[in-house]
């Protein structure tokens, strides 16, 4: 589903990604962990080109993401993204937040878009908040609406950029539950996270990223219980 070859990203002289290679299969849930500044978010943001890769190749669903001729808007329609800080549209209600992209990008009728939005709000358990504005919602509720907004485009892949890092501890669970449901339904997911419990339980594969490289990857058991590298073990011992 996602193929990444020799991905490099520099910000000025600072090399953030130093030659990433990976292959993510359909329906796979990949969790990317690692210390802050290791390039996890940059890697994720390169996948839908919110960051422009310096060099390398990314292919999603057999379509090259990188390259001059690519219409990036078409690829982004298939790649949903959930942000650390939710980034809901504050001037629109929960329902309108979800309806907007299907209407304007997928050219659905208002009625169709509303059906999609109602269904997704029910799925994330927020039907009764349909007419609430983002500022009237808790962080956990906002993030669930943001997930629903991304899902409304019926993407083939979902990218999660530390989706629970800005949340109060007591609402982290409700967001993770929505993500677990998605994983069970077979969504292809790339999740940058500090939630080791989630990575262990839901991840098919865990990637430990350090200093711009994929230092080590494997099943949750391999990474959490039998890490090969000292760096990985040191990181995990600090965080677990």
């Amino acid at each position, binding site marked *: 589903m996602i193929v990444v070859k020799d991905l490099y990203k520099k910000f000025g002289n600072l090399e953030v990604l130093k030659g990433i290679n990976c292959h993510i299969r359909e329906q796979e849930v990949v969790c990317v962990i690692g210390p802050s500044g290791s390039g996890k978010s940059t890697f994720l943001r390169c996948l*839908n080109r*919110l960051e422009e890769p310096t060099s390398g190749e990314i292919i999603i669903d057999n379509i090259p993401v990188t390259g001059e001729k690519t219409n990036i*808007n*078409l690829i*982004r*329609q298939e*790649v*949903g*993204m959930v*942000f650390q*800080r939710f*980034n*809901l*549209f*504050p*001037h629109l209600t929960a329902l309108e937040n979800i309806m*907007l*992209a299907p209407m*304007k*990008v997928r050219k659905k009728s208002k009625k169709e878009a509303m059906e999609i939005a109602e269904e997704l709000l029910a799925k994330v358990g927020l039907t*009764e*908040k349909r*007419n*609430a*504005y983002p*500022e*009237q919602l808790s962080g956990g509720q906002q993030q669930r609406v*943001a997930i629903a*907004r*991304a899902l409304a*485009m019926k993407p083939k892949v979902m990218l999660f950029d530390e989706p629970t890092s800005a949340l109060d501890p007591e609402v982290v669970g409700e967001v993770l539950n929505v993500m677990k449901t998605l994983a069970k339904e077979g969504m292809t997911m790339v999740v940058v996270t500090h939630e080791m419990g989630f990575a262990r339980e839901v991840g098919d594969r865990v990637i430990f990223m350090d200093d711009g490289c994929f230092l080590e990857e494997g099943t949750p058991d391999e990474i959490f219980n039998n890490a090969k590298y000292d760096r990985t073990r040191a990181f995990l011992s600090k965080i677990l």
Partner: protein
Amino acid sequence: MRWDFIAEILPKLFRASILTLELTVAGISIGIVIGLITSLMRISGIKIFSAAAKVYVDFFRGTPLLVQIAIIHYALPVIFHYVPVAIVSGVIALGINSGAYVAEIFRAGIQSIDKGQMEAARSLGMTWGQAMRYIILPQAFKVSIPPLGNEFIALLKDSSLVSIIAVEELMTTGRLIMGKTPLVAEIWFSVAMLYLIMTSTIAVFVNYVERRLQIGDSSQRSI
């Protein structure tokens, strides 16, 4: 004070005030259209557009409006061989001048919107234009309302400068009356009061719009 004289000239000044208002509304309307286009050019990231926008803004903010009016009404007709109409020249000058200020107001408004909004919109597959239209501009416009109100008021006062090309708005009318009478104080205090009434009315109106828009997206609405 000769109150009877004031009562006598007031209807005339009042009619002239209406022209002042019309000039200002026409000017700010043109200014908003030009300002919107200019601000988008400025932030487009396309060098030639942003450079052109910057030259325009710098020129019209960096030279006196009085000179701009003179250029439009006296200089350009000489170069391009046409007969200028005072009121048209006046509206164009006010419009182009306020466009430069409005462009900066919109630019500040757009840049005050969190970067995450554009990213979220783009990540959903929206084009830059769609993201601007549906996500960024509605929010930017709202934060721009108070400075736009100030610009409206400033322009109303500046519209008195078109009196140099003999548009018969409030200032010119005051001057014309002054030519026929020694009661100078009565005239100019009346003119000042009429400007003050207009600017305060606009201020109240802008306040009202601002409050309405705040209610529009906050806790006032039921959940």
